[in-house]
């Protein structure tokens, strides 16, 4: 099938579908018509899209953890614990890494080893292996809106099974689940595979079932300038909307400088509305998600609480619709459920303390919104141009040319030419703009910001500055100053 940003016909979709459902035996249990009926009986308070719309209307910021274990009963217990003890508003099901690589045999092996060991040896819930019935056992025993969170380049079978199982939200996208999550899968393939997922959600929508979709905002989670993740988020949003998705949450990972973080969420909202309207996707409801600090954490739990709290504060002050929460065990690997609940409670407390305090739209915030908007427009418009008016085609060409370039990404289809670093106030800027199609003004702005920092630190900007920035938060600071 040729890649273009155009809604798949039913024929196109069902031809591929027959193959997808054969990828693992559990695919045979998916019955779309029966799944529609199943969804029709899911109460409103468990529907992700409805909860997000309500939050957006009320100016709330909802909390959501990451969580997933190998076995069904343990997973149900984990989610209910996070709802009760963590006061989480929205619940996830994080998928294990074997499933993300479509290694269902290894996932099965992980399930069996977990059964033997009496603890989860998988870092998530292998939903494909558990199948529709297993997924429904989770859905029916957890009273909250549920989302699939993963990092799966080819997530078609996973989508079929989890949506038929009653999940009401699905994370991911053809760019955001490729560039940071794969090494040698082409963008053509992942964009097509995610058009499939979006089309599936679109067909649910045609049957009156509203499923929320969420491109993965933070990408590599490491010094990603807002304009780059915004461009990817908006492209993925548009690709989803074209396939008929009606409820989309666009994401952003905390950079750490409050002005930049507040401006980023405001700019993301405004730009998304602008580009969706410009391209005619006017019946899509857009919300935002703010990811607490995705980089390295301090090992000390008390310090980790401060990092979590600062992420919660930024999310609340920026008025994001939801916040994805970290835990005080972040530096130590996958958290216990108790630590997960602690991160959620700290976040909830912070959000509630700040909910009555709007952050003023200062001239500093406005200036930052303007620069993010200008940069993002450079990227989006160049992608559109490269694709000859098609964002899907343009995206493939843009990554090849370094017009889109994600720092520290594992994919060989990413040029890896740009180098980000913090400026003297801790905002993420570009030390090397690579091939990003920025105007000279913008390039000069970044150069000046990095030079200002270099001067303050008495050193020339170098890769060492970038390394210092990457380790800075875990060593207790935002900007990686020379030791």
């Amino acid at each position, binding site marked *: 099938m040729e890649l273009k940003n155009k809604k798949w016909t039913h024929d196109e979709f069902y031809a591929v579908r027959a193959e997808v459902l054969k990828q693992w035996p559990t695919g045979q249990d998916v019955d779309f018509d029966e799944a529609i009926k199943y969804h029709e009986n899911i109460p409103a308070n468990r529907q992700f899209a409805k909860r997000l719309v309500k939050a957006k209307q009320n100016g709330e910021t909802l909390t959501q953890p990451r969580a997933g274990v190998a076995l069904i009963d343990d997973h149900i217990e984990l989610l209910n614990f996070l709802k009760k003890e963590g006061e989480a508003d929205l619940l996830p099901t994080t998928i294990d890494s*074997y499933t993300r690589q479509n290694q269902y045999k290894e996932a099965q092996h992980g399930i069996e080893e977990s059964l033997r060991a009496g*603890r989860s*040896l998988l870092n998530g819930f292998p939903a494909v292996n558990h199948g529709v019935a297993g997924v429904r056992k989770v859905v029916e025993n957890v009273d909250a809106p549920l989302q699939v969170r993963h990092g799966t380049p080819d997530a078609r079978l996973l989508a079929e099974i989890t949506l038929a199982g009653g999940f009401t939200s699905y994370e991911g996208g053809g760019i955001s689940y490729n560039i940071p*999550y794969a*090494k040698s899968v082409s963008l053509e393939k992942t964009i097509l595979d995610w058009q499939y997922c979006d089309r599936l959600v679109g067909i649910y929508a045609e049957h009156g079932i509203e499923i929320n979709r969420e491109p993965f905002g933070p990408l*590599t989670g*490491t010094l990603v300038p807002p304009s780059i993740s915004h461009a990817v988020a908006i492209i993925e949003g548009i690709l989803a909307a074209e396939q008929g998705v009606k409820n989309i949450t666009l994401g952003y990972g905390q950079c750490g400088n409050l002005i930049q973080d507040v401006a980023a969420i405001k700019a993301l909202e405004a730009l998304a509305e602008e580009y969706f309207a410009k391209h005619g996707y006017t019946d899509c409801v857009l919300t935002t998600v703010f990811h607490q600090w995705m980089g390295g954490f301090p090992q000390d739990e008390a310090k980790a609480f401060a990092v979590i709290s600062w992420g919660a504060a930024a999310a609340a002050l920026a008025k994001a619709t939801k916040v994805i929460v970290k835990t005080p065990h972040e530096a130590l690997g996958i958290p216990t459920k108790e630590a997960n609940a602690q991160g959620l409670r700290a976040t909830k407390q912070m959000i509630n303390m700040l909910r009555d305090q709007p952050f003023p739209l200062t001239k500093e915030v406005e200036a930052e919104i303007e620069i993010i908007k200008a940069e993002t427009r450079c990227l989006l418009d160049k992608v559109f141009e490269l694709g000859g008016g098609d964002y899907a085609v343009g995206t493939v060409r843009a990554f090849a040319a370094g017009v889109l370039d994600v720092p520290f990404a594992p994919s060989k289809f990413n040029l890896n030419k740009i180098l980000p670093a913090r400026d003297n106030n801790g905002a993420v800027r570009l030390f090397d703009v690579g091939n990003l199609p920025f105007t000279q003004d913008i390039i000069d702005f970044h150069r000046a910001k990095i030079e200002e920092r270099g001067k303050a630190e008495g050193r020339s900007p170098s890769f060492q500055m970038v390394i210092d920035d990457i380790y800075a938060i875990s060593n207790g600071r935002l900007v990686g100053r020379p030791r």
Partner: protein
Amino acid sequence: MQKDKVKIILGVIGADCHAVGNKILDHALTAAGFDVVNLGVLVPQKDFVNAAIETDAKAILVASLYGHGEIDCRGLRDMCREAGIGDILLYVGGNLVVGKTDFAAVEAKFKEMGYDRVYAPGTLPDKVIADLKHDLAQRGLLHG
């Protein structure tokens, strides 16, 4: 004539795609004078072994950040032995298990699995470099 640099294999094992630490370690090891063969992320055990044989590497540095380390890393020493490089230095580091666990227990488990050094989360490249230089020197493999 300048002596060849020591070659070392670097990679993130299994279905893991955490790339940031891998890139930093590559940079730091190269700057420290090693010839780094970086296999990147999502590396199967056999690719580590094949690369070590092809390049005559003296050490394999395995990273695992996503909690599946216990499953992914088991058997690598055996595979090295079978391939005739049973005495190659094997290091492993990262978030090796799911859940918060006593690091001493994790270390013991991975040493028993045949790894020469086991690193806790948050270990800085400097520490790895110092250990590598020490271990290679002991084996007479490091050219001053």
